[in-house]
């Protein structure tokens, strides 16, 4: 488990410093795959509808579908290779490292017993904080999507760290459907939002205006 968590922290941090969108997507994909590897190691090889949903959620949606959908959109738009998920300066980088340390400190307060659970909690805490750092420092749609997906992955890791049963099937299905639809919407917005266009003050002629 420790090696998987170190790997998770690695794919959490490296894409912040390598400023290309392909690295960001690869990082997200690897996060999903590592999350599934951790879930698999915790649950073992038992097969049930619940574990199939975990597979779909972590491996298929987070590991494959989300990065591939965003990749297709960016390829179609011929996006320039460079994309800073964090501003390229020492302050932002120091903040990122500081937030990782804060995540570890938080975990040691919340879960004083050392072990895998504490390490997972530390990684989840760091991931949430880094996701917020990305969101706070970027205005581009792609970087904001990366920020949100990082937070979503952090929540999944947090739930894994509790080791609790995922809950009722209906609720689990609902969450999965919401996440899947959100990914499709992210891709749609990435393809369609044009942040450079000015907002007109005059009302557009619209059928539903009044």
């Amino acid at each position: 488990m420790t090696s998987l968590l170190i790997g998770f922290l690695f794919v959490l941090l490296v894409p912040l410093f390598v400023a290309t969108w392909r690295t960001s997507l690869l990082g997200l994909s690897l996060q999903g795959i590592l999350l599934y590897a951790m879930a698999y190691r915790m649950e073992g090889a038992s097969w049930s509808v619940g574990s199939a949903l975990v597979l779909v959620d972590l491996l298929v949606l987070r590991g494959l579908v989300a990065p591939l959908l965003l990749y297709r959109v960016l390829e179609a738009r011929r996006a320039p290779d460079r994309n800073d998920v964090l501003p390229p300066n020492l302050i932002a980088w120091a903040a990122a490292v500081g937030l990782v340390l804060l995540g570890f400190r938080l975990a040691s307060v919340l879960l004083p017993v050392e072990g895998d659970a504490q390490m997972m909690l530390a990684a989840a805490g760091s991931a949430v904080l880094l996701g917020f750092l990305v969101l706070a420092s970027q205005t581009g749609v792609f970087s904001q999507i990366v920020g949100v997906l990082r937070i979503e992955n952090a929540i999944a890791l947090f739930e894994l760290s509790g080791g609790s049963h995922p809950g009722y099937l209906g609720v689990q299905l609902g969450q999965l459907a919401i996440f899947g639809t959100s990914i499709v919407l992210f891709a749609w917005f990435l393809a369609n939002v044009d942040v450079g266009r000015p907002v007109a003050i005059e009302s557009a002629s619209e059928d539903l205006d009044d």
Partner: protein
Amino acid sequence: MTDPARATASGGTALVVAGCVGLALACVLAFGGFDPQVLGPWFLVDATSRLFCVLINVIFLGVALHGWSRTSADPDRMLVPRRYVVLCIGLLVAANLSITSNHFIGSWVALECTTIFGAFLIVRADAPASTLAAWHYFLFSSIGLGLALLGFACIARGYASHGVGDLFITLAAAPNDAKTSVWFTLGIALTLLGYGAKLGLAPMYMWLPETYEEAPPPVTSLLATVQFNCALVGLLRVLQAFRPGHEQLVSTELVAMGIASVALASASLIATRTIRRLIAYASILHAGIIAVGLGVGAGAGYGVLLYAVSNAFIKAMLFLTAGKIEAQYHTRDTDQIRGVIKGLPYSGLFLMAGTFALLGFPPFGSFVGELLILSGLVRSGYLLVFATIGFLVTVTFVATGRTVFPMIWGEPVRPVDAYPQTFLSFLPKLMFLLALVVLGLHLPGPVDALFREVAVTLGDK
């Protein structure tokens, strides 16, 4: 082949039918002596769900009637696309499920569904700014609801060690030592922050003015009333479940978020020069006052409910009116809209009444609600908060009046593209206005009993 005019008319009719069915079901639920056991453990039919189900369905029906009457009066101008109809009905169903769900995550899933339907509804093909607004709406909603989910995960983790296995609202009462655990405190704080984002509370309120301005007016009405109240019920559920025995739980946080929201809204109102953005900032102010009222807890519960319900009617009426004014003056700029009472007498009347209700004047329900919240503040010893709110509300009054009163009574500066109005087209707004007056003067017995029942769950004696 389908006749487009017929498809349009049937779209409007479908929305009205959906609204009627929703309201009929909500009334049976609220006043028909319905046995809640019939729905099983996944649904919670208590006073809160009964009150808010009736509210959102009344408003949905009003908005649907408004659209339908416009279709009937001028079919060429007012199209109701099938996509819009399906999304609106989806939003209504998800909103009702969110309010009646007995499971925290189940309610969260339904609220997320309303967000997804809402995002699609905001986008207009001919207005690129609406796509950007929809993106900001969806982004902030995703973050907010993500935080709420994280909060529920923390609460579940805190409860797991005390034998409470799942997050059913009616089973949420746990041993008191669980409620003082760090997981529990962290969970409640994250949930509050998350639902606060959906309500437009500071610090995550930025999506709201842009979204309310760019969405089609009927959609803005639905978001500001139906969805807002779903998020409010989500927050009320957390307080109702976890506050008993811990009356001061998140009181300080709620009051702080409330005051910050009121302050931000008051400052922004001074600089705003578009009509719907102005109402949007007033919505943030209202959310702030509701948060302060919830923070006070005991003694302000009835006032909070009266204020929240009144504001739903005010926002529905004002956003529909603002949409009509924008469409007929062909501008959003408040400096270009003058003398509405002469150019569009009915809209001018509704704008005037709505503005007075917005500012908390009698005889509207918002006046009584605000008064009860403020007196709750004094009774609970929050004197500094009382003084701050009093000052900020005065600033709001001046800022809103300075912008809106010339719009109503000023000398016209541009022609109005007026067309004949049927009685049916302003009937929903008239009903909203009537509801506001009834809320302010005398509540019918069964409705008053429902309000009191919910207020007790919020700490009122």
